[in-house]
């Protein structure tokens, strides 16, 4: 087990190096010059040339890459071309809103989806199953931003219960924090509820056909205990996998929800960085995401050991 852990940690290094190289090259080869974006509408070719020189963009690609890698080796992700703020600081400012939104979304999604999936599996083929799966199709189909606007109209503008937009940091109090995240997390969780409910239903339904379920029932155990203790527990591996992937997707894929609710998270930061061609910031964010994805996958693999004792590394 420790050997596996060490192996996996070491395996992240080549992944990150490859990601760094690809991102660096793609940004330089893609159209769009950060200097042109910086000087603005009235700027001239001469202004652009001056800014390019100041940013080191006229140096050869190997020189630029080497400079970046040298800084990286010292734990320095560089400085935003536009804001002159360290990339680590900018990412640091945005982690809390994104993690909060992702965590709350996941809690809502799991709390609703797993029971629904188990119920659907329990009544497999019945009206409850069909209704729940119909709901899950709806969940997949309604874009988060549409649901977001509907929730804002209802809860914020009509009933005036919750704010339209923004994020309040935890340091300002849990009440405010929660208040700003209720609507976005509901809007965002619908698709995850649909996804997790479907996977839970399929996994539990399959588990319920196994011999040990028949044995458990023959022993006279209550149906609820059979369903949860034997059915759900044995179906946990694919469910946890989907939840894990969901976490990874949530951290990087909440752009639309963040935009609709004006949450200053990593998704918005990524889009801003890409649209302004802020190379150091884009590189830093993508490396950060790559690291998060690798770590989440590692955690998922480790969770298998807990969930299924037959699995050994």
């Amino acid at each position, binding site marked *: 087990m420790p050997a596996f852990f060490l192996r996996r940690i070491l395996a992240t290094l080549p992944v990150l190096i490859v990601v760094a190289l690809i991102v660096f090259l793609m940004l330089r080869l893609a*159209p*769009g*010059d*950060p200097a*042109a*974006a*910086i*000087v*603005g*509408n*009235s*700027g*001239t*070719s*001469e*202004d*652009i040339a*001056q*800014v390019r*020189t*100041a940013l080191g963009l006229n140096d050869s690609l190997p020189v630029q890459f080497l400079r970046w890698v040298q800084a990286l080796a010292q734990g320095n992700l560089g400085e*935003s071309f*536009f*804001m*002159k*703020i360290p990339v680590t600081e*900018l990412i640091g*400012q*945005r982690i809390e809103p994104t993690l909060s939104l992702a965590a709350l979304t996941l809690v809502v999604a799991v709390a609703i989806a797993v029971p629904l999936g188990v119920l659907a599996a329990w009544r497999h083929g019945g009206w409850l199953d069909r209704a729940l799966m119909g709901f899950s199709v709806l969940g997949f189909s309604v874009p988060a931003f549409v649901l977001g*606007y509907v929730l*804002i109209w209802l809860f*914020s*503008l009509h009933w*005036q*219960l*919750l*704010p*339209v*937009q*923004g*994020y*309040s940091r935890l340091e*300002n*109090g849990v*009440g*405010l924090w*929660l*208040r700003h995240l*209720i609507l976005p997390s509901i809007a965002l969780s619908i698709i995850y509820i649909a996804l997790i409910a479907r996977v839970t239903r399929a996994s539990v339904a399959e588990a319920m056909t196994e011999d040990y379920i028949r044995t458990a029932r023959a022993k006279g155990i209550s149906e609820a205990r059979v369903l949860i203790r034997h059915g759900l527990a044995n179906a946990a591996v694919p469910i946890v996998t989907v939840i894990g992937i969901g976490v990874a997707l949530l951290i990087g894929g909440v752009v639309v929800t963040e*935009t*609709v*609710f*004006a949450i*200053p998270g990593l998704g*918005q*930061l990524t889009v*801003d960085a890409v*649209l*302004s*061609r802020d190379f150091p910031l884009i590189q830093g964010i993508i490396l950060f995401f790559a690291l998060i994805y690798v770590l989440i996958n590692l955690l998922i693999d480790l969770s298998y050991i807990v969930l299924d004792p037959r699995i050994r590394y």
Partner: protein
Amino acid sequence: MKIRLLRLTALLALAGVTSLASAQSANPANVLRMVPQADLKVLDPIWTTAFVTRDHGYMIYDTLFGFNEQGEVKPQMVDTYESDPEGLNWTLKLRDGLVFHDGQPVTSADVVQSLRRWAQRDGLGQKMFAMLDNIEAPDARTIRLHFKQPFGMVLEALGKPSSSPPFIMPKRVADTPANEQISDTTGSGPYVFKADEFRPGEKIVYVKHDKYVPRDEPASGTAGGKHVHVDRVEWVIIKDAQTQANALVNGEIDMLSWVPPEQYAALKANPKIELLTPVPKGSYTLHINHHVPPFDNPKIAQAAALTLNQEALMRAQMINKDLYNACPSIYPCGSAYAAGSTAYFTGKPQFEKAKQLLKEAGYDGRPVVLLNPSDFTLLNKFPPVLAQLLKQGGFTVDMQSMDWPSLVTRRASKELPEKGGWNLFITGWGASDTMNPLYFAPMTGNGEKGWFGWTTDDKLEQLKNEFLASMDENKRTDLAHQIQLQVFETGVYVPLGESQNYTAVRKGVVSGLVNAPVSVFWNVKKQP
């Protein structure tokens, strides 16, 4: 029974959270929360010509001169000034009581170094310093300028409202090389920038500069007394237009600096909202690449101008008739300079004339590449309409869609369109950019040294130089009219029309907005 109890508990919990949070989020009466024109990223006002950086500059810096509401230049940091009749020697005296945010007095040495740094990047500043023989600070309050030849635009240059106004910084900050961004935001303006609360993409905070001494005159434009009636201004960054409007209606923000056209009708109809027009109309322009065929032939550029239908173009982009008007002049319509002739250009389509010109010019039917910034909602509805108009006028059009950063990169390319260059693109400006021919960056006829499009037009450059040297307003007006005719003669660029940008505020809560050529936020009051 259990279910009922659970439901009741859940409802009580939600009510508890919302009521507790409501109490905590009460909007303090002396904090003005507003959505600015765009997200603030670059803090150095000479590093970019972005409007939002300019607006940030007006918050924290002061200027030597300002433009009042009537378009007249008035002293701002300057107390008195004088020049000889030829305009070769100028003496400016700073007013008493000017201090930077760190408590240090503003001196003429700060002014001289700030102007030197500004002039390294700003086009008009470069022209002024090219004609300057000497600029000196003989004592702490006096600045002397001596010109080699007459320069009639000293006041207009020092009071330039946009896009890079000559803001005054402490000498230690202005000593920063012009090719390096400043890292110290100390100014002497009415607000202090809270660097420790700067969260780009989220919130930008300013607090009142307690030691600021406003002028005695009433605030007018970028001139007059800059009084601060709130303790704190928060620029809240909300990107989505619908969310901006929702947040304003819900009272979460007090002011929306630029109302998105798609939200105009809804906000106009809302009794809780008041729509204001503190900033004059802006304009949109079509830019033509004269460096490569077919527009290296001015007749073909004129033909493109003849296809324009300003009404159709502006309607498509601005959606609502309240938000635009046709204006064939290159200057803001209604201004003195705009009264001049626009020659053949009427802003209405003249397809047959265009076709005739194309025939005379020997247009070979090669596709003209029109750049379409499809991600930029303030511009992306123009190109499809323009493409159709050009086709009706006899052009073959290749409209290429890209994001705005790609467009601003591509417009710097002098290559042929098939090798990554371009023929046409559209962009927008504030009235402060177009009010004076020497303020307007695209007004160049110096070929490859000029703005994108690289028009070579010696006569235009000559007229600009005469305008620059003249101190006689009547002569200047005449020259401005001649410049307009020359712009249409060569087809340097073509105006598409004017747009009215509205500012939306919570009715009865926000008042006192100053009418100015650019967005300024002093004198604003917020009622509890």
